[in-house]
């Protein structure tokens, strides 16, 4: 969908230095971001970009389905508050269940990284 939209606008540029968010990891990243305190959707998107040093390219639009999904799971809670832009925005924060979930995701991720790294190592020596 993204391809086509850019294609249509004639501004296609290759994402050479960008990494597409791995399927399923977005939830984890959002939970992680909210560990530092409540934040609204725009803020979450910016935090993700900054902390990945601009390599992580996330369409902001794709954040909202994830946020609403996490809220429905009971891992996030939300409230409307005044934002820095002098405008009301919807702030999300971790719930207790969300914190437990983050811990689970974290250990799962560590395991994946270790495993993948182990497999990838021999190829370096070729």
């Amino acid at each position, binding site marked *: 969908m993204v391809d086509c939209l850019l294609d249509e606008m004639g501004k296609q540029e290759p994402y050479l230095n960008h990494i597409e968010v791995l399927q399923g990891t977005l939830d984890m990243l959002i939970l992680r971001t909210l560990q530092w305190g409540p934040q609204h959707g725009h803020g979450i998107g910016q935090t993700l970009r900054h902390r990945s040093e601009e390599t992580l390219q996330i369409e902001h639009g794709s954040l909202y389905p994830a946020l609403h999904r996490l809220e429905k799971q009971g891992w996030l809670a939300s409230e409307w508050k005044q934002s*820095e832009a002098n405008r009301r925005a919807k702030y999300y924060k971790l719930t207790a269940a969300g914190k437990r979930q983050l811990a689970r995701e974290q250990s799962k991720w560590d395991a994946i990284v270790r495993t993948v790294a182990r497999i990838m190592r021999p190829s370096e020596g070729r």
Partner: protein
Amino acid sequence: MPWPFRRPAREQELDDEIAAHMAIEVKQRVEAGESPETAEIGARREFGSVALSMEVTRGMWGYGWLQAAHQDLRYAAKSMRKGRAFTAAATLTLALGIGATTAVFSVANGILLRPLPYPQADRVAVLWRLAPPAAAFGGDEFPWGRLDFSMFQEHAKTFDSLGAFQPDTFNLTGRGDPVLLEGIRASAGFFPSLGVTPALGRFYTAEEDRPGHEHVIVLGDRLWRERFGGDRTILGRSIDLNGFGYTVVGVMPPGFSFPHGEEMLATLEFPREAELWVPLSIKPGEAGPSELGVVGRMRGGAGIAQAQAELDVFAHTFELRFPTSKGWSRSRAKPLASQIVGDTRRPLLMLLGAVGLVLLIACSNVAGLVLTRSLGRRREFELRTALGAGQGRLMRQLLTESLLLAAAGGALGIVIAAAAIDFVKKFGPVTVPRLQEVGLDPMVLAFCVTLTFLTGLLFGAAPALGVRRGKVGDSFRGGARIAGGHLSPALRNALSVGQVALALVLAVAAGLLARTFYGMLATDSGFKVDRVLTFELSLPSAHYPDPAHEAQLYRKALDKLRILPGIESTGMVHAVPMGGEPDATMIRIPGRDPKKEARPYVNYMFASPGYFATVRTPLLRGREFADTDTLDAPPVTIVNRAMADALWPGEEAVGKQVGVLTPTIPLRTVIAVVANVKQSSLKEKPLPQMYVPYTQSEIKNWPPMHTMQVAVRTTADPAQMTASLRDAMRAVDPDLPLARVATLSTLLDRSLTQPRFAMLLLAAFGVLALTLASIGMYGVISYSVTQRTREIGVRMALGAERASVFSMVLGEGARLAGLGVAIGLAGAFAGARAMSSFLYGVRPSDPLTFGAVSLLLGSVALLACYLPARRAMRVDPVVALRHE
């Protein structure tokens, strides 16, 4: 307003949330030095598709599908309103297909599927005696005799109850004009076997079903209401039937009139609607002719197989006791349901198949329409894709549109079906069993809804798949003209070929039935219907106790009618053509050994002098009956040609002798041979038939002579004669009603109702199929011409003749039509073989029908291509090329 009409709070909140996001982004970008406009665009690009994001987010809420469906529906309704002509054409096509199918299904449902109105009807069996295969005459089933029924009743262990019944007519007097009622004489086990209960009073008991006690009566609901004003105090009162007083003991509930004539052996001539029931009262050891139907309720746990096994044992017992009955002792048990449905099942299945084909054609036609339209809407879809609509969502959108279209078609279809059912009930053949029970019941409605849904899926599948195959962006890059894709022309052509093939199958079936029908009309019936009026006389046994009295009355009636002004000739017979079934008997011929040859079985009817002349049955040899052929004169008979050919092949039948089996009854001399007369259907094969003068009835109890049908040939319009005939008959016997007054042509017409109706129905389906297929063909070719306008322009610019363009387009149509006809012919050959039992006088592979129908279909298809071909021929190359 409740959701889904109100915009929910959650929806508003999502809007706000995203608006806030945008506002913050824009603010940051402006602070970083971008102009407000660039900031706005940048924010949007950063965000991606707002619509898609909202759409997916809604999906997270859990009821997204419902909302999506609501949206799809709204959009579908909008697009249906936009394409009015398309919507109207598709809806009407579907409505016709669904309506016709629902109507036929409702008839099949009412007749074949709905349970019978008797409790535990699966335990009710109908029993018939079986004739040996050698004596095949029509069917192998024949009625029970009193003796064999009584014997079996004593013997039977698999039945809780058994009831024997026979039709009879009853002359009701003492309440205004005498009226002839059609009723049933039934033994006491009859009602318990069916499991019915009376609405009022009780049934007669086994004690009342004995000679001397039998003057009790159970009234039918209609008789009770119409003749006795629904009087509840009628129980215990006496009414006069055939000169005897009968005590009313019960009244049946509305709707009960078992047995119906069309559901039983035709030879028994049961009334269409029985109005009353009286005891059969069999005398102990009484023999007599075979004229009983038998119905029985099987014991719990026993089935038809056990009943049949018991009948087989009984056959053995019977033969031991009556050694001469060898070969004629077997019987058959069959479920009541299959007895009632009888021969209706196969015609119904044929109609269901035919209407199914129509529905298929309608479906594929609408699929073609939707496909064409969806190709035209390609730009719209791609725009929506570009704006973030998922592919799955687009397919769902298309399917929703198809289903909505189908629903509209289905709704209109139900209306059409209801009208069609009313029409069939009013004008359909009266001989179809249970037809009046047919209606739009829940089962039919469920069928219609399912059908609608399946139809929507079926014709919606093609365009939906088309979307999946189409590559996004095609139309923006190359323009809509080449965006047809590679899949769809093939699919559209296949749909069109299929329609032509199916239409051919239907048209061939209709053609064969039409040939059958006109073959029946052209057949040599052996009688002429013009200016002949018929009616039936039924003599009550109280006043006319024996054949001598009966003959006396008939003689008086004939003498009176002969001198009536306006009457050319008159005669009587047991049953005029199409007026009833003849009796039948085994016969003996002197000099032939019954042990070596199968005993011949022939129809046996009384007739009067003047009968053959009146109905114009050709006398091939010999003389007609005369008034002098009385009991004092030598016994004579007239045989038909079939009997003469069967019994005395290559010999002169006149002068030969023939008699019934009873040796004490003298042989009759054949005095004439007449042409074969079609007795109960123009389709029947001629059966051997002998006529005996009513003045020489020497057998006391068989065949009964208490009913005779009178035929009068008038000099003017026969319908004008009814009143003077009534007056004349009143002078003969004032208590004698004239029953079943009808012209011979009416009787003939009535016998043709069913085949005519089947033919017209199939012809209507055929015409519908033909129209739909030619519209489909027109659509395909016309669309192809539009698509190829540029190509045609190029060809012309390069020097192609207009004529060659014309023939190119026509050739494309001809190829499709030819393929459709070829496939259709193969299908029609198979289909025609399956319907061979409905045909008469025409072979299932009749070359004329196949040729004519192929030609017709081919020409109609080409005609459908003619208009687009002419349009192609007129393409102006300059315009076509500039168009690009």
